[in-house]
């Protein structure tokens, strides 16, 4: 290939980076369904049809309450949506799912119909990381799907670098860790060591159902049911794997980089 060919291919392809967050977010696939919502009014007492169909034991029924759906455990298979005879669990089509606290992912009961989305880091950390965040990724039993869709953020379509976010090769160069996988017993020591090698102040982001709560491997004797059992976690991004837009939204939300327009709730099918 001649240099001129290279340049002409490059020119023909043009800029392929998406407009988001200044423009609209890329639409989720129509069959994706997005975030779930639990309608407490439609969840009658005594019904538990959704509980046994969930492969990751994400749904419980506390005595006297409505179904409690833990989106941290959820792999978004929609089995509960199909199983519920009352339409109490619905898909919203919303790609935004990231939360700062584990309990913010548990749906059910008045006021908790949906995920309580992540707020930004405090002012001090935001000043440090807001325009330059270096992350070290640790796969601790990840199946290579979360890893792949984190990698996607580095491609030309997403161009994570434009936000000042970069994945680095050493924890010593990093401001935080991104953990995927349920944290296998065999990776526990390595994860702990990597965490200790990151200089303070530092953050930890758990990506995917496995890293949040063990995912399909919850309660397997070979895993630790997620990153939070080994290191403190500052951001939880649900999904199996989370769609790249869900991961990016979580990162930008944490850094306080989303303006009101992008942070608003989109309409299904948009």
């Amino acid at each position, binding site marked *: *290939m001649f240099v001129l*060919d*290279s340049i002409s*291919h490059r020119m023909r392809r043009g800029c*392929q980076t998406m407009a988001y967050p200044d423009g609209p977010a890329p639409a989720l*696939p*129509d*069959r*994706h*369904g997005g975030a779930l919502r639990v309608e407490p009014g439609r969840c009658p007492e005594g019904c538990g049809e959704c509980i046994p*169909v*969930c*492969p*990751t034991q994400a749904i419980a029924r506390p005595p006297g309450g409505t179904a409690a759906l833990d989106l941290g455990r959820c*792999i*978004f*298979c*929609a089995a509960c949506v199909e199983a519920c005879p009352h339409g109490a669990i619905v898909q919203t089509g919303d790609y935004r799912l990231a939360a700062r606290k584990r309990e913010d992912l548990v749906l059910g009961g008045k006021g908790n119909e949906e995920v309580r989305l992540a707020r930004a880091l405090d002012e001090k950390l935001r000043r440090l990381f807001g325009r330059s965040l270096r992350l070290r*990724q*640790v*796969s*601790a*039993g*990840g*199946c*290579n*799907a*979360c*890893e*792949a*869709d*984190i*990698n996607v953020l*580095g*491609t*030309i*379509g997403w161009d994570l670098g434009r936000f000042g976010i970069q994945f680095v*090769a*050493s924890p010593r160069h990093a401001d935080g860790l991104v953990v995927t*996988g*349920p944290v*296998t*017993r*065999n*990776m526990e*020591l*390595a994860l702990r060591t*990597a965490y200790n090698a990151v200089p303070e102040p530092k953050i930890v982001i758990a990506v995917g159902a*496995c890293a949040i709560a063990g*995912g*399909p*491997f*919850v309660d*397997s*004797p*070979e*895993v630790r049911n997620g990153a939070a059992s080994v290191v403190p976690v500052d951001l939880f991004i649900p999904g*199996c*794997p989370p769609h*790249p837009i869900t991961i990016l939204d979580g990162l930008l939300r944490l850094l306080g980089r989303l303006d009101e327009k992008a942070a608003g709730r989109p309409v299904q099918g948009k």
Partner: protein
Amino acid sequence: MSADSFLPLPNPSSTPWAGVPEFPARDFLAASAGELDRGGRLCSWFGVPEGGAVRIVAVIAFDNENTLEVARSEPLRGSYPALTATHPQAHLFEREIWEQHGLEPKGHPWLKPVRKDRGAGPAVGNFFRVDGSEIHEVAVGPIHAGIIEPGHFRFQCAGEEVLHLEIALGFQHRGIEEALPGGPHRASLSQIETASGDASIAHATAYATILETLAGGEAPLRAQWIRVLALELERMANHTGDIGALAGDVAFLPTASACGKIRGDFLNLTAILCGNRFGRGLVRPGGCRHDLEPERLARLGRLLAPAIADAEEASRWFWDAASVRSRLEDIGIVTPRQATELGLVGPAARACGLVRDIRFDHPAGWYRFAQPQVAVWPGGDVFARARVRWLELQRSGRFLTDELGNGPEGEIQAEIAPAAPDALAIALVEGWRGEVCHAALTGADGRFRRYKIVDPSFHNWTGLALALRGQAISDFPICNKSFNLSYCGFDL
């Protein structure tokens, strides 16, 4: 009752456990060795606990005869003479049986754990070492520099030259096989889909096929057609990603950038089918969860054509550049003989000139009616492995384009009967990395008594270790990318 020959079976099949030929230990080893010597390939070799003893089950493929064969040993205790001593393709299987059941293969040249640490951590313990004043050792991992899965590589080097590479895995072990007995459980399908998460369709298809075969039926044809569309999309996404990653590793950025994007285009096509970019939730025992209505089919076709054209164009820049070709040629060579002896599968084997492809040799499902041409390239080097991916990318593209219009009418999901009790089922699927082999044994209640998964990476990691011999250590990244094996698929 002792048998005198293996039982021939097609792919997939289910057969009564009592009818699987049974050999005393020495005869079993001799018979297995004999089958491998007459051209067989070890697909699976695993233990089934029985009382306090363990039976070994052998699954051997005769690719040219389009036949599988199975046999089992009598219950064994303590030890047995290792097959590895004469047939290296058994080496990891025998280590695994020793680790899982404590049955010692006597005479195994390198007996150490495969996944479990036995309290010491997978990377701790004996490594093969080269001694000498000029020799140094390089240890890499478990955590690597990129966004990839963990594993440990131990190089013995003289200067830049790698004399030996030993690969220690097990960091990803999530206990999938241990969780399956007594199942299917409600998490089983999800666990199988994430066994090797970039090959979800391949593993889910093998698992669904096992349950359908045990029930004495198969999924409706339309579901089999949809599964094949998804499997080929999975292949194209990953091959595109691999070509891009190789381009990135040789600093050829036009292809690296373009392929990163195009890989996503293929993943998005899978998401049109089922909502998930990795095909989660599409394949189910008895069929598929989602249909491909005419409008959706038309949309898929409309988006597939430019994705294929883009992938081919981006790959052409790569092949047209002399600087790229010269960087890939004669690097990381695996000879056809080594590939045969190790039982390599998938693109890694086909890049050594071996014609082995389950879609063609042991066709099941929709591949009984149509198959893409098998892509083979001689040489066994990084160039050949990249070339085979490129050929497969093009052929899968043409195959998909043709098959989109050939969908049969009908249901996509059938009720499946309860699984046959006391039966052994085997299903092979050609995933994008190669042969995915699932074997299940049911108990008297029709539930799993033993479930054995062999990911193609289980066969192929040793191929990467051999490819590094005599290479500069700086060639490791492109050698590794050219195989692009699964850590979690190996570790399970």
